[in-house]
């Protein structure tokens, strides 16, 4: 049951048997990043054109400038993404803005050959017009990959950490150990409760802690207090120990 649940995390098993989870990014955010990149690209091109026209055109003539401009355009068109993605940041300005980056399927940074492969295949993804092929492929593959990604073995992932709300209020409860050992997931749930409970109403807190009556052995405020105490115990089993005296 749990295995068939739908998730946005995609687990990948590495060669050494370790399973990592990639936070793959879908077509909506990727297309937005692409549009931003397009704007950056066009802006850079226009600025370059102006700069060349005002500086070089007088020195080397109109035709030479035109030729040079076309050369620059060619290089930029093919290597804009390659250069940014194979750099240490691994993302173009648009992707950085949307907090995305390209990584290899094994979780490592993309190699230059992968970056070249996935970006040169844009020509295929672009077909017949405006990335129709790439968009459909992205929409219907499990890891939201366009054809270039599938060939190069890359995925687009979020770099933004998942949202975490830290407790702002001081919790006043007595630290206590849970009566039975809890699994990692259960401990994580208790932690999450401690962290997110300040955002909820009293009723919701009581409702949730009421579910765990078999664990706490109490209902109402007493149950809530005990639950919070257990969560605090998991966070830090003992009250803050006195620090050792400073070394002379």
């Amino acid at each position: 049951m749990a295995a068939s649940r739908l998730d946005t995390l995609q687990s990948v098993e590495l060669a050494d048997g370790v399973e990592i989870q990639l936070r793959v990014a879908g077509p909506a955010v990727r297309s937005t990043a692409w549009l931003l990149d397009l704007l950056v690209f066009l802006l850079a091109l226009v600025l370059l054109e102006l700069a060349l026209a005002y500086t070089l055109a007088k020195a080397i003539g109109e035709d030479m400038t035109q030729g040079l401009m076309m050369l620059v355009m060619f290089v930029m068109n093919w290597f804009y993404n390659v250069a940014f993605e194979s750099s240490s940041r691994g993302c173009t300005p648009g992707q950085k803005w949307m907090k995305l980056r390209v990584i290899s399927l094994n979780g490592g940074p993309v190699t230059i050959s992968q970056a070249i492969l996935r970006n040169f295949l844009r020509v295929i993804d672009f077909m017949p017009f405006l990335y129709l092929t790439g968009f459909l492929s992205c929409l219907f593959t499990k890891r939201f990959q366009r054809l270039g990604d599938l060939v190069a073995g890359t995925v687009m992932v979020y770099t933004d950490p998942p949202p975490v709300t830290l407790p702002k209020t001081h919790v006043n409860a007595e630290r206590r150990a849970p009566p039975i050992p809890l699994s990692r997931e259960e401990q994580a749930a208790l932690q999450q409760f401690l962290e997110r409970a300040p955002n909820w109403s009293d009723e919701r807190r009581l409702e949730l802690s009421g579910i765990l009556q078999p664990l706490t052995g109490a209902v109402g405020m007493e149950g809530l207090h005990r639950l919070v105490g257990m969560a605090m115990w998991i966070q830090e089993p003992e009250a803050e120990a006195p620090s050792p005296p400073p070394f002379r």
Partner: protein
Amino acid sequence: MRLEDVTLVLRPRLPWEAVDLGCAMVRRDFGRVLALWCSTVFPVWALIIALMPDDPSTASLIIWWLKPLYDRVPLYHLSRRAFGVEPKWGETLKQWPRLWLTNFLPALLWRRLSFIRSFAMPAQMLEGLRGSAMRKRVKTLAVDGGGSGMMVSYAFLKLEIVLLLGFLFTTYSFLPESWEPDWSALLEAPDAIGLDRTPFVWWYVSCYMLAMTLVEPFYVGAGFGLYLNCRTRIEGWDIELAFRKLAARLTKPLIALLTFGFFSASMVMAKDVQQISEQVLKNADFEVHKAKTWEWVPDKLDLGKGPKGDFSAIVAIGEILFWSVVIVAVAALAIYITKNLHVFAFRTKKEVQYEVPKVIMGMQITRESLPNDILAAAMAAWDAGNAHQALSLLYRGSLSWLVTQRRVPIRDSDTEEDCLSHVAKHAPQPEAAFFHQLTGAWIQTAYATLPVTRDELIQLCARWPFADKGGAA
């Protein structure tokens, strides 16, 4: 709605990740969603087209305007599916009229141009709220002020345009020539066009409908994903789910104990283990694969007859070639080894000849640099008030003896400590013991400037163990 039956992994996500979850939901059920879309939306479109076959522009406007209604049936299906119900196509279709008629007017009038349409729709449709209660609810849900809902609308609008352009470009070259408007005339006289272009506009509208059919379900899913994410964050659904599981785990063994007693309970568990292991072994990963391969063997093996003709000359040449190659290789190997003998001769000559140093720690220790009678010279120096020189003479003298006569391997770079350890290792016992004492006296005099007393010096001289006493040597 039972949270335990949820078919998604709930956890607080980034808005864009929630959108991706929605897209993944639609993708999982795309066949069913598409079937529902076709069976609810296509009849309406057919009706619109049939009513105004000559006015594609108005028709397309109406088709666009009714968008919020189209979204409702897919949303209904997705919401049921998310909570573990798998509604049949017919069952969902029965809900169609009800779904389209609730909140019919507001959705088409003042809420039509809402920027957070897909995000707000689950609140409107699934929670059954109306009016100000609904507005308040949406406001509560929009944790980030609806920003993410707007971003989604914008992103999917863009995707719809992209798809529309893609389809237009793909099919443009397949159009009959008579359909195409006269582009040059359009440029010259914009008023003159419009007579024959109905089929052309219909083509455009059908591309638009195709694009909408593909994108709109995902837009609905994205909005639903956002909605679920907001509720997960606000109400802690993921925590509730984990708590329920934990509570179930805690209560279950209790019930089992009460009903079956301890013994039968353990039996049940053993049976479970067997069942589980059988289930696991049924998995494709544990399947034993056997491959049968066939090798082709010719019917008649023709081994009896050798090759025809006389090949003895070629064989002889080949033999000569082979042996010459072997000889050359062996010779080359021999030459290589002799040339690089130093590589193979491991450390046999490593014990290089020990060269007696002439200077240690900057002090001359050759016999020539020392006076003939070292002891007398030392006493004389001490009497002259130069304790440093006296000790230095003794120290140099003993080093000189140890290095030349006892072959103690002291280098010119060694310190007092090094000399001492070398002497302890290589020199005979009385000499080593004396050298130990002398070194102490020397260090004390030279570095701590605490000169030894006259008695101590006399004692040192008396214990001098080396045969070379100076002048007598």
